[in-house]
Each structure stands twice: as C-alpha cells, then as structure tokens.
C-alpha cells in the first residue's frame, strides 16, 4: 500500500497573511498529502506540539512579515526540546536572499520564495517526508 504522508502547515507569529499557507496546503492536499492546517498566529511551541500529536513527517511554515529569522528556528528548537528533532521543518514566504543561509543554519531544510514553482515545493515535501519515514524504521 502506498504510504500517505502527513504534514503540518502553520503560520507562526502575528502575521495574518495566510494566502500563501493556504495555497500550499491545498497544493499538498491535491498531491495526495494529508495536511493538518493550524491556522494563523501560532506560537512556535503550539506548532511543535501539534506536529508531535499529529505525528506528521514534516512541518511547513509560512511568514510574510519579516519575522522568519526568529520564528522559523524557534519551531526547530521547540521540536528538539520535545525530542522530535527528526521532524524536518521547511519554510516559505517573503524571505530575502541573504537570510536563506541563516535559516539553513537554524535548521530549516528547504526555503521557498514567491517565485518557487509549486512542483518544486511538493517535491521538497515528498523528499523530506520520505526521509523522515525511513528514520522511523
């Protein structure tokens, strides 16, 4: 039987612009993922805790407000503190080129910006989930 990947899409922080997050959530659904959507204005701890309860294979974060440098790595840290550092965190939004390296250092495995084709994003989630599932064995 084909494995169905579960992912969580969430928006940390006070930014309420969720068009991007919802677009990605729907695109992933249409690509056969089970997508848990937690809505806007979540704390990093809320997102990490939800990801653990839902046993997702990857977390996708969206930020349009410029707070990604602080908020994205905070989700990675929160997962780590809960012993779930094996769950990869991907991120997207309005992210300047020069921030990408810093986010990678903060543990974000893939970064998407407004020009990224949706197929690239789906492919990245598929890869991340497949790797996470292998670590479950």
């Amino acid at each position: 039987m084909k494995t169905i990947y579960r992912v969580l899409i969430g928006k940390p922080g006070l930014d309420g612009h969720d068009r991007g997050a919802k677009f990605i959530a729907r695109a992933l659904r249409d690509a056969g993922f089970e997508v848990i959507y937690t809505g806007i204005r979540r704390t990093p701890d809320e997102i990490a805790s939800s990801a653990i309860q839902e046993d997702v294979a990857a977390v996708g974060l969206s930020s349009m407000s410029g707070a990604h440098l602080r908020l994205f790595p905070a989700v990675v840290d929160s997962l780590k503190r809960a012993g779930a550092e094996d769950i990869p965190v991907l991120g997207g939004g309005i992210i300047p080129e020069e921030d990408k390296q810093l986010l990678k250092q903060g543990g974000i495995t893939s970064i998407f910006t407004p020009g990224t084709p949706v197929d690239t994003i789906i492919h990245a989630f598929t890869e991340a989930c497949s790797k996470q599932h292998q670590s479950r064995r």
Partner: protein
Amino acid sequence: MEISSLLKRLHQGDARAVARAISLVEDQGQSGPDIMAGLDPKRLETSLVVGITGPPGAGKSTLTASIVKALRNEKTRVGIIAVDPSSPLTGGALLGDRIRMMEHTLDPDVVVRSMATRGRLGGLCAAAGAAVRILAASGCRLVLIETVGIGQSEMDIATLADITMMVLAPGFGDDIQAMKAGILEVVDLLVVNKADQPGAQKLLLDLGREATSSGRVLQTVAREDQGIIRLLDAIFALEQQLRQDNTLQIRRQQARQREALDWTLELLKPFLRQQINSSPTANNDPGEIARQLAGRIIAEHG
C-alpha cells in the same frame, strides 16, 4: 522504536508514543496488532467514547472545544479524534478541525488527532476504532470523536461510540424534517446548539414534543460555553445507566464485530477488484456480476 518501549511510553501518556502508535495502526504497519494487543484493558473498560455528529456548520468543533474546556476544569484527561474527508481523486486531505482546539495545544492532557477518511464512507475512517482505544489506553477518561459533517443515513459513529450525540442548529429545520424518521432511534442525545439564535424555538418544535420531553434534547451556546455543564451531566448520567443495565458492554461488542467486518471487507477489496476486472462477463449487469462472484466465493468456502 521498540514496541515494548512504545507501549510503556504510550501508557504513561507520552504524546509522541501515542501519535506514533496511531500512525502504525492506521498505516497497517506490521506492529499494529502487537500494539493493539498490548493496550491496558482496564483503561479501555473505564473510558467513555462519545461520538459527535451533525450537519456541517452546526458547531461540532466549537462544541467539542467547549466540552474539552469544561472537562479540563475538572482535570479530566481527554482525547479528541477529528475526522475530515479524503479527496476521492488524490487521496489527499485538508484537516482543519484543530484550529478550534488550539487553546489546548500546550496542555499535555488534551490529545488531538486529526484523521482523514481514506476512502471510507459513513463519516469515519477505518482506523478510528483503533485510535479511540489507543487514546483510552493512554489515560483519556473521555474520548470524543468528531465525524465528518453528515446528514441522514451515514451514522457509522453510532456503532463505534458508547454515546452518540447529534448537534443541530437553527436554520437546519428542513434537514430535521428529512432526518427525523431515524435520528432519535440512532443517537442518544440531541444538542440544539446556537440556542440563543432566532429559530432555536422553531427547531425544538420541529423535533417534536416527544423528543423534547424525553430529556434527550439539550440546548447549548457553545461559543459562549453555555449549557455545557448540563450536557456533560447528561452524558455521565447516561453512561452510568448504560453501564448498569449492561447496554454499554453490548454496544461495544457490536462495535467490535462491525469493525471486524469493515476490516475484512477492506482486506478483501484488492482480491475482489481483481476478480471483477478479470471477469469475462464485464458487459453484464453489475448486480449480476456481484451476485455471481459472491456466489462463487461462498460455494468455494462456505
């Protein structure tokens, strides 16, 4: 993770172990049967499974959140299974019921699991029964199952839950007329939510005097946490009654048999599909193909 250590952590209420156990069973992993066999029967016995169903927009998620809040005031550990539909085309699903439950996200004694129907009709998913038992074994005194918003005939929840309640709201009067024929026979409690809205009285009238005077119809305003304590009292009173006259045990027995039947059909599906696809009678009436196939199987194994 070793199954023995997974089970140990699950019974300690560890969030990760609980979540992983549900996934292993849902994905039909090899360890699924061992997990289910290792669950503490005492906890399964003492927990109560409450099904929440009703048409979309009646306020099922909001009512669930409000019930959870009231239970947490009493320090009761509670599990929630929220079921949403899978796309029949892609198999994907968008699971959004958590959003109304977010205020409890950091509470380790509120365990929420979103599940997709994965092709199953009737408002539930095939692994719902297993997920309920895993949550119960993790120490949840109550497990709430919120089904896909449904209408008339899809009442699978009533066979899985110990107590089933249907949530209605003003403005669904026509639905009531259509559903009335069977609802009170299948559900234990009827909750008229949004009872402060115009039309609530009309809805109560539509339900009929027999229903409203039976004590099985309750009114709530879930968004403002009104009527929730009375609803919980009704649930626990009913539980006591069902346990005393043995109905609860009978219901669970029937639920297990029903679940076993569902799993059997699920496991047989690939075989049946292959039989039908390779059948030379492909142009015949579908009903006739089915009868012939079933007849052949029964003749061979009956």
